[in-house]
């Protein structure tokens, strides 16, 4: 998908117009269920003073949680592949805890870490690191043995093989998981702001929900989506940088 292609802009335009016509000229749908686009725009305008700080805080929680989770996850995956002892120690625990939804831990988090920014960042990081950790380990396990053997035959020791062969090899395989994790980290940020946040986009959403302000909720959703979309685009830019060497497949089913 290319952002801003004519076809997608056209389609988005059509949806907006139909939405506007239905919500503003008919009474088929009550505004409390779906407000009109202009209503949402108006709400965003009303929130303009609170928004910059809220966006900054939520962005901070999401990005730092994502960053920490990415590093910890990769380190875990690499360590599990590097050391059999570590794998046998940590692997079963990870398998046991992985199916637990991170969101289910929110009450415990409040109990353990209290309220504040730190547990919020920690929650996002936890969710991200599990995804990245498992994917890192699996990518390494699926590596062709011949690369490892070639490197070792050329004189590289285990550490050097990890640094110069394993890490570069898995990067393209991790990108998919990184994008999924990035998308999920926005959701985790919303959830984390349920842990007694006093500022932030998620917090605003909670407040608007209490007042049944659907336009306000949707306005925040639109802001979150925009941020997530921009972040995803950034990841793809980095991806292209890091994976110049891959045989970029140009699969197309148009002529089949």
């Amino acid at each position, binding site marked *: 998908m290319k952002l801003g292609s004519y076809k997608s802009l056209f389609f988005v335009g059509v949806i907006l117009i139909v939405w506007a016509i239905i919500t503003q000229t008919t009474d088929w749908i009550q505004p409390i269920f779906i407000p009109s686009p202009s209503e949402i725009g108006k709400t965003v305008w009303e929130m303009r003073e609170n928004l910059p700080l809220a966006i900054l805080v939520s962005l901070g929680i999401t990005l730092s949680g994502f960053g920490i989770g990415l590093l910890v996850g990769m380190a875990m995956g690499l360590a599990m592949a590097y050391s059999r002892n570590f794998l046998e120690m940590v692997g079963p625990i990870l398998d046991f805890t992985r199916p637990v939804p991170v969101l289910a831990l929110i009450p415990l988090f409040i109990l353990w870490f209290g309220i504040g920014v730190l547990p919020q960042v920690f929650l996002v990081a936890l969710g991200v690191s599990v995804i990245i950790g498992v994917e890192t380990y699996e990518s390494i396990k699926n590596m062709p043995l011949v690369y490892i*053997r*070639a490197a070792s*035959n*050329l*004189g590289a020791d285990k550490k*050097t093989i990890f640094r*110069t062969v394993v890490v570069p090899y898995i990067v393209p395989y991790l990108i998919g998981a990184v994008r999924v994790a990035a998308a999920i980290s926005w959701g985790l940020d919303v959830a984390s702001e349920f842990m007694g946040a006093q500022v932030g986009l998620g917090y605003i959403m909670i407040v608007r929900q209490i007042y049944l302000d659907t336009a306000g909720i949707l306005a925040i959703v639109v802001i979150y989506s925009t941020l997530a979309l921009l972040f995803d685009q950034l990841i793809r830019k980095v991806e292209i940088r890091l994976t110049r060497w891959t045989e970029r497949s140009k699969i197309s089913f148009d002529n089949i």
Partner: protein
Amino acid sequence: MQNEVIKESIESILKIRNLSFSYTGDECNMIFKNINIDISENEFFCIIGPSGCGKTTLLNIIAGFETATGGSVLQSGVEIKNVSHERAVVFQQDAVFPWLTVYQNIEYGLKVRNIPHEIREKRVREYLDVVGLTGFEDRYPRELSGGMKKRVDLARVLVNDPEMLLMDEPYGSLDALTKEKLQISLTEIWEHSRKTVVFVTHDLEEALFLGDRIVIMQHIKFNIPLRIIDVPFKRPREIFLKEEPEFQRMRRELLQEFKLL
């Protein structure tokens, strides 16, 4: 049951003694048993045999990737226990690192062994030239043909000046023309350096064209002792050798060896 084919010579660099291998470690799943081969220094030694006879496994044991179930392999009198860049392997699969450029691939072995930068650069340039890839140093492997990748692979091991080369059907996946080209350039490079080569292949013509001696490995279930053939053709060898009557006669003889089964 003993495959006793020992060519006693003082200068044999590689001695394979009563070598057996089984993946499960027991008697019933033997891939091969009691293999004895002596390979001399500066020899181009070919191993041919049908799929599943254990020739790649034999090479992997010599390389140090796998551990023998019984017996041993001695390099210059010392038992082989580890992988070493002195026994450089050219693999059957595409083993060129796709994330490194041609230059970085060839440089890899020197770099991980902390050879100083100036020496590295000089040697890499030299071997880029040897394999005819000067001008391609900044390309990524995805931009190269299968034959060119094999050249990178060869340069990547030669640059480390190993004691011997272990080649595992390196040209098995290439088309006939590319294969022939690479065989010619391999003989040229080899005649220049005269490194000991152990070359695994299932291509009889390739073995006859390249080798000084050929060992014929058969599937263990047929219980046929190893047979070693001396290849009489003088060097330097040219591609027309393949059309000579004597070459064809030997090829037929080898073919017979397999057809008997």
